[in-house]
Structure formats: structure tokens, C-alpha cells
């Protein structure tokens, strides 16, 4: 009997009677250090959870009543959305402002990241330059966008300028990494071919590297644009950058208007979906024949 046939038989047997132990099949996973650590961690977490719930100070809150009230709020928000403090056209205009913030940040970020991305791609740059840029970029990315906005607000004051600079900064960090990885994917033979024909670095970059990685570059940039859009909404609220985010902040924190919050959420959602569709269309256009 062939080995395959035996395997098949065993599989069939196991399928029919999963509890049965066949000779030659290990009864259970060997118990080693890793398994022990995982088990202890899980038990520890479980105990902590129980302890937390037992020792909570509930201050007389009725859990089910609370859930019911929240659901009621959500119902008001999303099933009866209405604008009270501004018109539909004004809301549209505010969304466009948010979109503009995101667009500027992405544009600045993309241009700067393109250049630095080239210098940080290992196949196009010296190991030292590449490592230096990559290290710096890792630091920029580690700090959240909001923090960058607040840092730049020291110089520019809270508002759209700080928001755009801060978002640009984080976009640069993000896009350098994405771009340089796209460049590193590039077939090194093509670079060798152009080098051997006497082309210089800039010519190789513009004639071979960028055309070859264009679709990657586009999809990363569009993805970052989507991220920047949602960040710009938050920045409108947190950094006073204006746009729909600021109206959202006013509606929730100032007017306490649940219906308006719902309406604005739908606005943002609608635009996010539109962006997504537009991005996908553009990407598909860039990849004909594949």
C-alpha cells in the first residue's frame, strides 16, 4: 500500500471518529515552555477580568438600563438624522474644506516622500543614507499624527496650518516607507541594463524605476489620502482646523444635538465611500491588460 493511501485512510478514520487515537499520531501537542507561558498568561488575564468586574464601583448604574439608553441615543442619531445649525449646502462646503486639508497634506507629503523614498531605497542609494532616512522615518511614524499637529501648533497656532503641516509630516513618514519598499521591489536587472548603457542615476530613476512602480506609488498615495481624510475630520475637532470635523465637535460637545451628529456622520461616510470608489477606479485604470 502506498504512503498516500495510508494517509487517506487515516484521514477518513479521523474524520469519522475524531475522538479516536490512531497509533503513530501524536495524541496531543507536546507540553513545552511556550505552551506553559501562553496558558499562564491566559489564566492570569481571566482572573484579572473576573477581579475587575467584581471590584467595580458601579455607583448604582443599571447596566441594562444604560445599554437601553445608549441604543435609544444611537437610534436618534442614525435613524432621525437632521441638520439644525446649518444647511445642506453649508455642510457640503465644510466637507470640501476637510477634503482640501487632506488633499494638501497628501500632496506635500507625496512630493517630499518621493524624493526621500528614492534616497532610502536600498537598491538606489548608499546603505548609510538609506539607514539614516529609514531610522528617522521610523521615529516620525511612531509619533501619532495628532501629536505632530499639536507640536506644530506651538509654532503655527492651533488651526488649519498646524493641521496640514502635522498631517504632512506623518504622511511623509508613512509614504517614504511605502515608496521605498515599492522601489526595492524593482527588478535589479532593469537597473543594471540601463546602467550598463551609460544612463545616470536620475535617468534610471525617471525612465525605469518610477514607471515600473507607478501603480504601487498611486495606490499607496490614494490609501494615504483616505487616511488623511479621516484624520482631517478629527483634526477639525481636536486642532480647530475647521471643516466638517469642527461642526461635528460643535454638534456633540456644544449643542448636544444627536440628530445633527447623525447627519454629519452620514456625510462623512458618504464622502469616504466616494473616495474609495474614485481611488479604485484610478487604480484600475493604471493597470490595463493585467
Amino acid at each position, binding site marked *: 500500500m502506498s504512503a498516500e493511501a495510508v494517509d487517506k485512510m487515516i484521514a477518513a478514520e479521523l474524520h469519522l471518529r475524531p475522538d479516536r487515537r490512531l497509533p503513530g499520531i501524536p495524541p496531543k501537542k507536546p507540553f513545552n515552555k511556550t505552551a506553559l507561558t501562553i496558558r499562564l498568561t491566559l489564566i492570569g488575564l481571566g482572573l484579572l477580568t473576573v477581579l475587575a468586574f467584581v471590584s467595580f464601583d458601579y455607583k448604582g448604574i443599571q447596566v441594562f438600563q444604560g445599554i437601553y439608553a445608549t441604543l435609544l441615543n444611537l437610534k436618534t442619531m442614525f435613524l432621525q438624522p437632521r441638520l439644525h445649525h446649518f444647511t445642506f449646502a453649508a455642510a457640503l462646503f465644510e466637507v470640501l474644506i476637510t477634503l482640501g486639508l487632506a488633499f494638501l497634506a497628501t500632496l506635500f507629503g507625496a512630493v517630499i516622500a518621493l524624493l526621500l523614498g528614492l534616497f532610502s531605497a536600498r537598491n538606489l542609494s548608499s546603505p548609510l543614507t538609506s539607514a539614516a532616512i529609514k531610522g528617522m522615518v521610523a521615529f516620525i511614524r511612531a509619533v501619532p499624527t495628532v501629536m505632530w499637529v499639536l507640536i506644530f501648533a506651538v509654532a503655527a497656532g492651533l488651526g488649519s496650518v498646524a493641521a496640514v503641516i502635522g498631517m504632512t509630516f506623518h504622511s511623509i513618514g508613512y509614504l517614504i516607507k511605502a515608496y521605498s519598499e515599492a522601489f526595492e521591489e524593482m527588478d535589479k536587472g532593469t537597473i543594471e541594463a540601463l546602467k550598463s*548603457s*551609460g544612463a545616470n542615476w536620475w*535617468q534610471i530613476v525617471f*525612465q525605469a524605476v518610477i514607471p515600473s512602480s507607478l501603480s504601487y506609488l498611486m495606490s499607496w498615495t490614494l490609501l494615504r489620502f483616505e487616511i488623511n481624510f479621516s484624520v482631517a475630520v478629527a483634526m477639525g475637532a481636536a486642532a480647530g482646523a475647521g471643516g466638517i470635523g469642527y461642526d461635528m465637535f460643535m454638534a456633540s460637545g456644544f449643542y448636544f444635538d444627536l440628530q445633527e451628529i447623525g447627519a454629519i456622520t452620514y456625510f462623512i461616510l458618504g464622502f469616504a465611500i466616494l473616495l474609495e470608489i474614485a481611488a479604485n477606479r484610478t487604480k484600475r485604470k493604471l493597470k490595463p491588460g493585467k
Partner: protein
Amino acid sequence: MTALLEFKHVSKQYGSETRALTDVSFSVRSGEFVSIIGPSGAGKSTLLRCINRMIDASSGEICIEGRNVLEFRKNELKRLRTSIGMIFQHYNLVDRLSVMENVLHGRLGYKSTIAGMLGLYREEEKQQAYQILGILGLEEQVYKRCDQLSGGQKQRVGIARALIQGPKMLLCDEPIASLDPNASKVIMDHLRHISTNLGITVIVNLHQVETALKYSDRIIGVNQGKIVYNGTPGKMTSEELERVYGSERREQRADQGETQAG
């Protein structure tokens, strides 16, 4: 006839352990068709890339028209590379660009940085590209993207890109290793034609001994970084072949039977 290319005691060392080339000396006349054969890892690719300094030899002299290329500085090196075309096993085209754009890449060495970056080519250059593509039988593919071509067509684009440089020498690194027999024959015929009719020196790394024997003016056999045969295909005997390929060749011959063209 004068020697166009001369290797004098060239060695190449990678790190402290690996020796890719050991004391290699030979010369190539202008217009000659030379095949370099040898087992994988014998140093054929390194040898070829030392000529246009894609790899720097560790010691010795490599002279082209009497000048040692190892001493070339940036601008001289650029001029040297511009005057030598190179063809690769995997074609190394920019797949997303059209055939025409890929061929015109061969002119980049002659252009200013800005013009090259933006791909601004003169009308004559475009016409020349079109003519060369015509000779290679690719008129109908001129505006196709390279990823829509077959392997044989891609390699012909590679040849066109090398030819538009106006080279004195063509270096071919395993040009037919990824092609089927028919496409291989087309490519080898073109290379032979380039050597005979245009007077361009062609140096080809080959795996296929029969092809090498059939097309070349001269064969250089390399084994473990040393030249073990240097002569005309006619004088290549089976003993010589065994020295080039070692035991590997013996096994191959057992598979193929004793096929040896001369």
C-alpha cells in the same frame, strides 16, 4: 588586425574566500564572434561584466583599444559603457513602457540628465529606433507595452536597445537561456548577422555547446575561473569539452548521446 579587447592576467576576488576569476588572459579582435562556455558558476558572467565595469576586477589589466578600463574615471566610464551594448538572459526591459520607449533607453548615455529624465528624444533617434526595430522584425510591436511580448520578441527589443547605442561591442549574458529553440535560433542568427555585417564585436556567454560551436568564430572555455580552452570551434574535441565541463559534461552527454557539431 588589432585587438579591440585584451585581458591581461585579470583576477576577481569576492571577499577573502571566493575567487571568481584567476589570472585570465585573452584578446578579442574587432568584429569577432566569441562564445564563452563553461559550467554554471564558472565565472562567465563575472568575466563579461568586468569588461564594462559593472563588476570591478581585482587585479590585472583590461584594455579596450589599448586603454586600460580599470583606470577610467566617471566620465570615461560613462563613455565606455555607452559604447558597449549589453543583452541579458531576462531581457531586463521596463515592462510597463512601450517597445519604442525601451529601445530609446539605449540613447540615455548620450543625453543630458534632464533630457534623459523626461525622455526627450530627437526625431532622428526615434527614426533610427524604428529602423532597427524594422530590421529585427518588430515594426508591428512598436507601440505595444513590453509585457505583452513573447520572450523572443523581448530579447529582440533588448538587442535593439543595445544596437541604438551604436556600440563597438555587444556583451550577451546567456541571451537564449530562457527561450525556446525557435526563438533561440532567431536571436542567434541576429547576433551572428550583427557581427558579420555590422562589424560589431559580439561576446556571448552560452550554456548550449552546440549553439556555441555552430555560431562562433572562437570559443573560450572557462572552468572554475580559469580559461581552459581558447580556440576555433573546429579544434574543439570531446576531450577539450570534458576539460571545460568536467564530469558534469560527461553526464549530459550520456543523456543526449554523442551529439557534437563541428
